[in-house]
């Protein structure tokens, strides 16, 4: 061969090497290699030609170097964003709202939510202008608007005050108010108070009263109430006066009122009156000098009036006011001047304070009424809104405070009953063209959604319940029905061709800008994506999510739209079920072979009450329609839900629910299920982790309970007690129940084999020394020890134990196949670390004789029992990792052949994909040639963070809490659903899509090429025939 040709070949070779190295999934076995070559030829031929054209040995050398450092990443092109991923932004359940509707400029509403989000929403469409997530520990107490341009937020129990620029959400200033004791937090922003060109903000938090400049957040003065031992309940700043009234209760049950000078914080007057019974809840201001409170027995109303700088108390028994009153009386916090509302178990009453100082009941409503704060309309006119519930609609009425008898405005709005009751209402007014007042109302529903009502219509709605997801599961979509009309096929064929012609134009760079946008549109809005039927590759699925509000949503994985949503009746407040909480979501019925006429269904487990012993409710929901199939409960308590690996003839998954007395309840409650379970009950075990006392306990089935054939008593089989003076459980992780492992062998360099210890019954437990259980930096390295254990949960045997001296939590871990990767903080190195433990089975290590394997003389497929106590060996390694972590997960595929990537939810609310090869304990500083060929990377002390491998690319999943991976039917692909305040979904192929052509593969180009080739064949054939004829005539 000529030297130039040699170069060519070398370049080609090295290029192919590069490519083949990317197919990590493929071990060198005779079968899989065909896939490699196929994909390599399919995808890379055009490019390899161009490489060959370069004909330079330099290039090939460069490529060789490049190939050694190449790791598959998930980088995508800019125009691929939104192609197979979607991102949704939420804010959570609104707890406070402030309108900003000046005549000029955009109308907006600033809200704070239970997810600690402050956001500015467009009043017209409900979109988010800007949003800040303050973090899990920074609870927003109060929000308000100062100077008409700053949003002021008080958070962390009144210790952090921040000002945000209203138009764009930039932070203007932040003050940290270090109170000595935690207390209630108040924020008062006087409208027209000026102190030396400054408008102060008054904040009470941490038992101190502060005056803070609204311009730069400087503390002007501070008054500490600690020496007086007073807990302030209320701040009153009368219009036009220079005095603040602070009313509080001291420890010795005295009412105290301070008059404080707004200029310097000096106490002008102090009055007190003894009130030995103490008060319950808040003090509510009803006029400039009068407030009302309840005494601690909740039976007497106390009217507090300040006359001539003296406190006067006037007590009125609630039962005297309202006849036949029941218990649990509270004063609702709605601020209405001269009026307050009282809520009891059965009704809500409006009580007016007459000029003579008498209390007078104006109106009584039954319980389903929600009241807004008063809204000043003019000098002496105030309005408030009141919402009542009808059958399928809500009645919104706006009333004037001075004239309660008539409705200023009454509207009826049709309301989806899946949204539940109205929980909160905020109103705002606008002036109509005829100078009358119009009102818009922002309402928060039981399912945490947010709606804007105006003129009897829902202007917009936001499903913010999705910001607080508790649990996620998935379901298949219905199978496509056969029989499509010819017209439809023709139409779609035409569309298809048109689309591909456009694409072809795009590839040949002939497209105009208009066409390019059209191409992009076609790509993003492919109707295939959001179809409601099952697809061949298993990309389209239903994501079923359970939210904190007790609402179940089904999201389409294609574009994230809500397919159905249902507010679970079993998780709504009722006399049988007070304080319901949603706990867990499990797939209940997955029809595969039999029962194909059944729809798949899911099981929702909830609890009525806050303690572990409260009764629980079970609901089975049809995954296609969202209808409740069955409701059980409230019944026994539930502390554990175990999904057993058995199903009955209708393919209903058997479940064991463990109650707080360690009894196991079997579901579904049928004879067949009991029979199946009793056959297998000898091999069913469960364990409990009692983190507060540091005990792991394992249980087995003992016998049936008395009188209930679906209930089984447990017997304690083993216990692992961690000494409380040295170890405290901070994290436990187990393998995902549905994970599929392809092979038990790990092929290492030189075709050697190691046998993985693959058991689903491994529990990873991380403990720290009690001193190190606080936040990072609270202990010295000498005092903090992190110990990790791998425990067999059948026998309680500790398979492996490892100690990390000078390290502490928080520990985030993921367990998959035979390895566990965990993340913790190393105090000595002052860095985060990630460690990996791989566990191998020594009892099978002897199976290395090829001949014996060929004839089947091996123990590799014989069932394993944990009681045989297999010998295990472990390998582990640690690396530094730059980020702190919120969650770790791992990709999962249908057959478990594809190599794995760790998905790390970083502190920046992004998801980083890290190849498992980086956390391989066999990495060494100088890998041998064979090891290099195997794909083993040289050891580095730090795990690399490759910017292109952020799966979330430009998006942030604010408040990231969990990463769920779902295998697609296509082996190479895994679906990733990340949730927090935001939702993000994408599709990943850890080893590239080696088993399919890419979505944007140009079929038109392929067709065109084939046609061109066929034409060329004919032309050349004709030409050669003619030439032959001429030759013969010569």
């Amino acid at each position, binding site marked *: 061969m000529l030297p130039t040709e040699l170069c060519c070949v070398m370049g080609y070779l090295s290029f192919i090497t590069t490519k083949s190295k990317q197919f990590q999934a493929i071990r060198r076995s005779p079968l899989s290699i065909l896939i490699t070559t196929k994909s390599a030829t399919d995808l890379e031929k055009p490019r390899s030609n161009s490489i060959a054209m370069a004909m330079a040995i330099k290039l090939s050398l460069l490529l060789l170097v490049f190939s050694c450092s190449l790791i598959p990443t998930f980088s995508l092109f800019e125009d691929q964003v939104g192609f197979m991923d979607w991102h949704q932004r939420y804010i959570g359940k609104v707890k406070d709202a402030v309108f900003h509707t000046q005549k000029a400029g955009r109308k907006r509403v600033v809200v704070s939510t239970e997810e600690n989000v402050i956001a500015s929403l467009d009043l017209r469409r409900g979109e988010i202008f800007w949003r800040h997530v303050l973090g899990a520990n920074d609870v927003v107490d109060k929000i308000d608007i100062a100077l008409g341009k700053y949003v002021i937020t008080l958070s962390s129990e009144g210790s952090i005050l921040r000002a945000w620029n209203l138009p764009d959400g930039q932070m203007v200033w932040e003050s940290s108010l270090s109170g000595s004791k935690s207390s209630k937090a108040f924020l008062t922003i006087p409208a027209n108070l000026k102190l030396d060109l400054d408008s102060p903000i008054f904040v009470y938090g941490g038992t101190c009263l502060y005056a803070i400049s609204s311009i730069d957040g400087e503390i002007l003065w501070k008054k500490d109430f600690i020496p007086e031992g007073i807990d302030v309940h209320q701040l009153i700043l009368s219009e036009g006066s220079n005095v603040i009234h602070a009313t509080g209760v001291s420890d010795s049950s005295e009412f105290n009122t301070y008059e404080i000078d707004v200029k310097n914080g000096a106490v002008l007057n102090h009055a007190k009156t003894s009130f030995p019974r103490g008060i319950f809840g808040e003090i509510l201001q009803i006029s400039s000098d009068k407030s009302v409170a309840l005494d601690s027995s909740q039976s007497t109303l106390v009217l507090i009036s300040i006359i001539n700088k003296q406190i006067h108390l006037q007590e009125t028994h609630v039962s005297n006011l309202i006849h036949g009153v029941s218990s649990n009386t509270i004063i609702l916090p709605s601020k209405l001047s001269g009026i307050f509302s009282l809520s009891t178990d059965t009704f809500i009453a409006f009580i007016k304070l007459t000029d003579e100082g008498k209390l007078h009941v104006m109106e009584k409503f039954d319980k389903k009424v929600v009241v807004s704060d008063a809204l000043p309309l003019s000098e002496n006119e105030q309005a408030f809104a009141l919402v009542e519930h009808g059958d399928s609609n809500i009645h919104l009425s706006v009333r004037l405070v001075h004239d309660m008898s008539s409705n200023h405005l009454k509207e009826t709005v049709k309301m989806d009953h899946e949204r539940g009751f109205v929980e909160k209402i905020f109103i705002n007014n606008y002036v109509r063209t005829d100078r009358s007042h119009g009102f818009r109302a922002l309402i928060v529903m039981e399912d945490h959604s947010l709606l804007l009502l105006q003129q009897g219509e829902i202007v917009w709605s936001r499903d913010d319940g999705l910001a607080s997801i508790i649990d996620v599961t998935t379901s298949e979509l219905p199978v496509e029905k056969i029989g499509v009309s010819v017209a439809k096929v023709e139409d779609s064929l035409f569309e298809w061709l048109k689309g591909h012609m456009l694409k072809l134009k795009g590839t040949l760079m002939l497209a105009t800008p208009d066409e390019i946008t059209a191409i992009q549109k076609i790509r993003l809005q492919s109707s295939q994506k959001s179809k409601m039927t099952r697809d061949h590759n298993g990309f389209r699925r239903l994501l079923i999510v359970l939210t904190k509000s007790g609402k179940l949503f089904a999201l389409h994985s294609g574009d994230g739209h809500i397919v159905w949503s249902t507010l679970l009746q079993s998780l709504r407040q009722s006399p049988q079920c007070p304080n319901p909480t949603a706990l867990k979501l499990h797939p209940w019925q997955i029809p595969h072979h039999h029962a194909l006429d059944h729809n798949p269904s899911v099981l929702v487990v909830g609890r009525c009450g806050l303690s572990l012993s409260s009764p629980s409710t079970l609901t089975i929901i049809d995954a296609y329609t969202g209808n409740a199939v069955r409701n059980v409960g409230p019944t026994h308590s539930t502390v554990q839900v175990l999904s057993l690996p058995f199903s009955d003839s209708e393919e209903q998954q058997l479940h064991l629910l463990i109650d707080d007395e360690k009894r196991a309840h079997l579901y579904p409650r049928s004879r067949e299920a009991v029979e199946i379970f009793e056959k297998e009950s000898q091999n069913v075990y469960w364990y409990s982790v009692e983190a507060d006392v540091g005990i792991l306990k394992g249980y087995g089935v003992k016998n049936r309970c008395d009188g209930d054939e679906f209930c089984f008593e447990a017997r304690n089989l083993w216990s692992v007690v961690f000494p409380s003076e040295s170890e405290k459980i901070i994290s436990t992780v187990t393998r995902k129940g549905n994970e599929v492992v392809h092979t038990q062998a790990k092929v290492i360099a030189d075709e050697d084999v190691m046998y993985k210890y693959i058991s689903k019954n491994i529990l990873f437990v991380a403990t720290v020394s009690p001193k190190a259980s606080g936040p990072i930096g609270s202990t010295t390295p000498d005092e903090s020890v992190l110990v990790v254990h791998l425990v067999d949960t059948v026998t309680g045997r500790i398979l492996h134990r490892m100690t990390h001296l000078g390290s502490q939590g928080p520990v985030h871990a993921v367990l998959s196949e035979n390895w566990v990767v965990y993340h913790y903080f190393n105090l000595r190195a002052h860095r985060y670390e990630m460690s990996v433990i791989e566990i191998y089975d020594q009892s099978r290590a002897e199976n290395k004789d090829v001949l014996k394997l060929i004839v089947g003389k091996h123990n590799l497929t014989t069932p*394993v029992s944990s009681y045989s106590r297999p010998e295990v060996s472990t390998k582990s390694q640690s690396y530094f990792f730059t980020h702190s972590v919120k969650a770790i997960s791992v990709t999962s595929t249908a057959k478990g052949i594809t190599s794995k990537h760790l998905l790390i939810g970083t502190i920046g609310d992004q998801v980083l994909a890290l190849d498992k090869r980086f956390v391989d304990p066999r990495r060494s500083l100088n890998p041998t040639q064979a090891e290099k060929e195997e794909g083993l990377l040289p050891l580095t002390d730090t795990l690399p963070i490759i910017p292109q491998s952020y799966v979330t690319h430009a998006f942030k999943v604010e408040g990231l809490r969990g990463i769920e991976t779902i295998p697609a039917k296509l082996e190479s692909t895994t679906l990733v659903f990340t949730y927090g305040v935001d939702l993000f979904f994408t599709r990943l192929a850890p080893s590239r899509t080696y088993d399919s052509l890419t979505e944007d593969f140009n079929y038109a180009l392929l067709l065109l090429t084939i046609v061109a080739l066929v034409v060329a064949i004919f032309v050349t054939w004709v030409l050669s025939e003619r030439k032959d004829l001429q030759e013969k005539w010569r």
Partner: protein
Amino acid sequence: MEKGKGAMGSRKWAVDFTDNSSTPSSRDIPDPPGFTRASHDHEDSTLSRQKKDAEANWKSQKAWEVAQAPFKNLLMMGFMMWMAGSTVHLFSIGITFSALWQPLSALQGVGKVFEPYKDNKVDLLAPKLLFIALNLGGMLLGVWKLNTLGLLPTHASDWVSSLPPAHEVEFSSGGIALHY
């Protein structure tokens, strides 16, 4: 094979000098003066024998040549394989499979290759054996290459990887008590 074809190609035409010479009808024509038939007949027979011997020699020589031809192929193949390296990719696979296929097809056509040299006097067994041996050698080379590429199931790993993980007898699940 090239050589065999060449040998056939070189015998495009032939003139038979012995034509009609022994038939009685030719005797009607008197021999020219000074021509003695007996001696001629004798010479002719010795000549043809000599010629036949030469042809047989030539045939056996050619047969040996053909038999040795795969050797060159072998060298060529070896060089190509060395060039292809020991990693699995399109190029090395192509070379390896052609290295396996070529001897195989050659062995299938052993009879045909030696057809032109078929002669009673020529012993074709030895060249044939050599031919077969060389081709087998080529095939072995291919198999060896296949092995170096790691495509032969000669290791435990090749047999184990397809085995599913062993079934676990016990099932266990649980965790921290559910709370929210």
